[in-house]
């Protein structure tokens, strides 16, 4: 589990005078799901494309299990599987043909069990253009897994999927992780990144501005916890302000809402106030900021 599978050190890449990635460093260990997050133009795609061997890095070093993606493409293709964001398949190719075609170039069998596992066994004769978006994503995942690669790149794996299809794909990704695959997940969906990733890196302007587990990022001291309270007699509505350690007090419907970096103290103080007013607590919500809120905070505020 501690083996470094992906090692990126001081990686830079420019397109003409435009710097896309400016000296980023990170490592990903075996069996980890590593989320690569960032707004459009942050450098995610460039980083992925260089790791996938599609572009040459401008500086620094990239290694996947010791292989330099820019110099050893033939070795790299056996190590990585890529679920592309765009189709990446001819419209008229059938599921069975796509499996046979890519399997042949990877020198492996067509893996019918993989189609069973991904719910595509009944669709073998269906052309790619006739598959639903969910099934197209599954096929892309099946093709990425065909040669049993050690590292799987998932680029916006659930974009355009409905809720059940999204949940199914999340289950599949977790199954992949349990088979010791290392997964790089590039996504705009923060809830997805928070749910699936063991660690994430947030890129902004070609630099990593935050990295850690989703819990570490959302528990950052600068990230305030939201506290919402509703009481039977609404006694706090006129007395919610002036709570020590709380900021931005407000009223949202029947709830008194405030934010704090010390939620325990604030909750204790609020409960004391409710008791002293002879009121009764109806609902108390303590919400840690989501990764999405943290992401917005970071990307709007710049690097921390």
């Amino acid at each position, binding site marked *: 589990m501690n083996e470094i599978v992906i090692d990126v050190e001081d990686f830079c890449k420019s*397109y*003409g005078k435009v710097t896309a990635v400016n000296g980023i460093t990170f490592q990903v260990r075996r069996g980890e799901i590593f989320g690569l997050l960032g707004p459009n133009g942050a450098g995610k795609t460039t980083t992925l494309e260089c790791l*996938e*061997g*599609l*572009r*040459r890095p401008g500086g620094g070093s990239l290694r996947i299990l010791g292989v330099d993606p820019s110099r050893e*493409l*033939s070795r790299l*293709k056996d190590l*990585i599987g*890529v679920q*592309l964001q*765009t*189709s*990446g*398949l*001819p*419209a*008229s*190719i059938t599921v069975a*043909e796509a499996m*046979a*075609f*890519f399997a*042949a*170039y*990877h*020198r492996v069998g067509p893996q019918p069990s993989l189609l069973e596992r991904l719910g595509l066994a009944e669709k073998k004769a269906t*052309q790619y253009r006739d598959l639903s978006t969910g099934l197209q994503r599954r096929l892309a995942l099946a*093709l990425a897994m065909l040669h049993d690669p050690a590292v799987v790149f998932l680029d916006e794996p659930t974009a355009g999927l409905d809720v059940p299809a999204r949940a199914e794909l999340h289950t599949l990704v977790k199954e992949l992780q349990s088979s010791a695959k290392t997964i790089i997940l590039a996504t705009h969906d923060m809830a997805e990144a928070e749910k699936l990733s063991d660690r994430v890196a947030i890129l902004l302007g070609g630099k990593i501005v935050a990295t850690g587990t989703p819990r570490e990022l959302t528990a950052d001291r600068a990230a305030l916890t939201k506290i919402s309270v509703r009481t039977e007699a609404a006694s706090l509505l006129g007395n919610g302000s002036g709570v020590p350690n709380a900021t931005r007090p407000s009223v949202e419907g029947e709830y008194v809402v405030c934010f704090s970096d010390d939620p325990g103290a604030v909750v204790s103080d609020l409960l004391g106030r409710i008791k002293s007013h002879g009121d009764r607590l109806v609902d108390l919500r303590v919400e840690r900021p989501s990764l999405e809120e943290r992401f917005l905070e970071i990307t709007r505020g710049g690097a921390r």
Partner: protein
Amino acid sequence: MTAFAHHFSFEFRAGLRDRNLLLMNYLFPLGFFALMGVLMTQINPGFKQTMVPAMVTFAFLSSAVLALPGPLVAAREGGIYRSYRINGVPAVSILVVPALSTILHMVLVAAAIIIFGPLLFGAKMPVDALGSILTFLAIAVACTGLGVLIGVIASDSRAIVLWCQLVFLPSMLLGGLMIPVTMLPATLARIAWLLPSTHAMNAFNSLGLGLPAVRPPLQSIAILLAGGVIAFAVAIYLFKWDSRSDTHRGPPAMALLALLPYVVGMVLFAL
């Protein structure tokens, strides 16, 4: 089955499944063949002499120049080449396999024209099998080379139409398919030798049908083969360039190199 065989098998079937490809590979050339067989042989009975090579050359132009470039550009625009590269499909296969499958479609259509032309319309049968096959091969290499080159240099789907018509229309009008090159005004006749179809008709009339050649037929064969090989080489070079380059595409002007054998031919035949 090898990776190449799987790739070829899929590309060939795609040529039958895709409506546009089916139209350009089969319906358009065979429909035109039927139309010309009915009308042109009535208007100009002499057309029966050259009907087979003219219709085969037309079919080759339709498949290779009109049909082949579209899927190549669509594949580039749709990220298919990206997926192919990641999965280890060689650049040469990406360009050559669609060309080979197009040649198989051409062979099937050519066979239909050779069988039904004489049967239905009294067209002159080829008399020299080896000469016919050599000429077919040369035309196939020349046309698919041009088709692949257009597919690589065309910046998008709209640009394909321009490039394709730049080859197809002059070939139809000046390339000896409808009017023999000897009947063209001297200046146009000279320009006509820049077209693969003119060389194709010249070689086939002599080597396949045993008719008198306007110019040495083996020189036409050499020009067609050289033009095709250069077109493939330039296409593969530019394709690899585009795959490696982050900022700009390979210079499309390099495609003019594929015209070099035809220019040499034009000068040679003008002497």
